[in-house]
């Protein structure tokens, strides 16, 4: 077995192995330490001989034995008895590791613990990427555009909080499950959106983050089958991500939906997303925001081109979303869909009315949406102003380049504020 193959096994198994070790040893840090030791032992032993049939069980077993050794040493050192936990002494991990349902429960425990609402959202995301996805601290730090040292401290504090505040290592029960699951899905979607359209930096997309989010949702769908919100979110992410190759030029410039080469879209992934939406819609329950957003993405995925997209149905679905989970993003997307049905003037009215109510205060994509509507209305001077505001509002380089391109297309400012074009548009 090559070191690369062994690395791949670690990558695939670390989340689950860690999840089980945490339950067995009752401590996040100890579990992480002994899992690292088990990895080191595997790197030594596996290349020479045949790797074990069940690498995860092997890792858990070796990790558990290392933990027992450590605790024994501490017991001998401190002269204290009774420190070996019941589970460490009695669990026969080999049999247990073969029982997939026990391991699934452990993995769910880990997901719900990392996404506990007593952590700030950012901390939930970082903990999940580090422990559930098995990313290194350096990789997580890159995801947050922060230093490895700062990220490491944040993770240490979070794990300390789990221990000191008594955050239980359990999947919430009954009525607590629904809100907590929504929290877990919000974490996954946040990881995805940051990967799909970064909020800052040089690159529009960070496909590694989008991939991790899809992997997490797949895992959750397997662990909690038959939940429409999980299927809805997975479908939504698959359908968005399927367009990845069409969304960017080789030079890293943004290609908007209306200009995208649809033959570049990943049809296999689209088919999977469409199937998941069907499954989600068949399950009982009220309309779920993720499933509705996925249905919108499906209409885009099915459309032969931008003009022949089913805009009236998309606008209608955004109205559903405005009812069940209103937000500035949904308002803006709704207005954009309305502009395709009733024209940009009607959409601009919607946005201006919203803005007057203060519903979009500080929302950074607002000037960009206004700029596009004004441009389509032929109100070039107002559009130019809005693009300047949009440029100031974003920290993402590719978006700045897009706005610069648009401004160039608009040409030089006219001498009078109300040029002839402006009059004609009205």
């Amino acid at each position, binding site marked *: 077995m090559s070191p690369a193959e062994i690395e791949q096994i670690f990558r695939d198994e670390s989340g689950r192995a860690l999840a089980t070790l945490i339950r067995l040893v009752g401590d996040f840090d100890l579990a992480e330490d002994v899992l690292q030791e088990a990895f080191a032992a595997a790197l030594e032993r596996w290349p020479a001989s045949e790797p074990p049939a069940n690498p995860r069980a092997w890792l858990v077993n070796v990790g558990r034995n290392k933990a027992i050794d450590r605790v024994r040493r501490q017991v001998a050192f401190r002269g204290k008895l009774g420190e070996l936990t019941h589970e460490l002494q009695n669990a026969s991990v080999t049999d247990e590791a073969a029982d997939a349902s026990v391991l699934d429960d452990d993995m769910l425990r880990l997901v719900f613990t990392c996404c*506990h609402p*007593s952590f700030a959202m950012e901390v939930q995301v970082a903990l999940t990427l580090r422990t559930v996805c098995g990313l290194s601290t350096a990789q997580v730090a890159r995801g947050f555009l922060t230093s490895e040292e700062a990220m490491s401290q944040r993770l240490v504090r979070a794990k300390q909080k789990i221990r*000191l*505040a*008594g*955050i*239980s290592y*359990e999947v*919430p029960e009954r009525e*607590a499950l629904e809100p907590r699951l929504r929290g877990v899905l919000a974490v996954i979607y946040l990881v995805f959106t940051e990967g799909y359209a970064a909020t800052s930096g040089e690159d529009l997309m960070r496909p590694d983050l989008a991939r991790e989010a899809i992997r997490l949702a797949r895992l959750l769908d397997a662990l909690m089958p038959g939940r429409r919100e999980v299927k809805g979110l997975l479908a939504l992410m698959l359908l968005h991500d399927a367009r990845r190759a069409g969304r960017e030029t080789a030079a890293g410039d943004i290609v908007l939906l209306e200009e995208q080469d649809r033959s570049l879209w990943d049809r296999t992934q689209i088919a999977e997303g469409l199937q998941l939406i069907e499954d989600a819609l068949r399950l009982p329950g009220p309309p779920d925001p993720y499933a509705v957003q996925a249905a919108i993405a499906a209409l885009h995925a099915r459309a032969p081109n931008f003009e022949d997209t089913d805009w009236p149905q998309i606008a209608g679905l955004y109205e559903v979303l405005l009812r069940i989970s209103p937000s500035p993003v949904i308002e803006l997307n709704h207005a954009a869909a309305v502009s395709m049905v009733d024209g940009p003037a009607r959409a601009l009215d919607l946005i201006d009315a919203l803005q007057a109510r203060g519903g979009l205060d500080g929302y950074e994509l607002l000037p960009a949406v206004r700029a596009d509507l004004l441009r389509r209305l032929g109100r070039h001077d107002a559009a130019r102003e809005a693009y300047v505001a949009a440029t100031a509002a974003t920290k993402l380089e590719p978006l700045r380049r897009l706005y610069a391109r648009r401004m160039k297309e608009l040409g030089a400012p006219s001498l009078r504020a109300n040029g002839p074009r402006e009059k004609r548009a009205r």
Partner: protein
Amino acid sequence: MQYLLLIYRNEAELAKMDPAARQKMSAEYGTYTQSIIQSGHFKAGDGLQPTSTATTVRVRDGKTLTTDGPFAETREQLGGYYLVEAKDLDTALGLAARIPGARDGSIEVRPVMIYK
């Protein structure tokens, strides 16, 4: 584990409360306290006089300095506490959410340190 549930609320608004509302609030606190005594979570609990009665003490270079008022001026002030026994944070958060003051003020939930 033991948790201290610290009840913060806006004193100025509390002072404006009419007698009927005040009585209703006391009754709700009474009911709540009884319920957590019965469920076995209650260890201790008290309300505090307003921060206008507070004195802050510091010792610097061996000299005792006293100042009138609380340590820091904040929008919400500490007004009372419960000390509870709970099996985990979720249970403690659940107890905190049921405190009447959680609806207009806020409850800080702090695990009590264990000395080994």
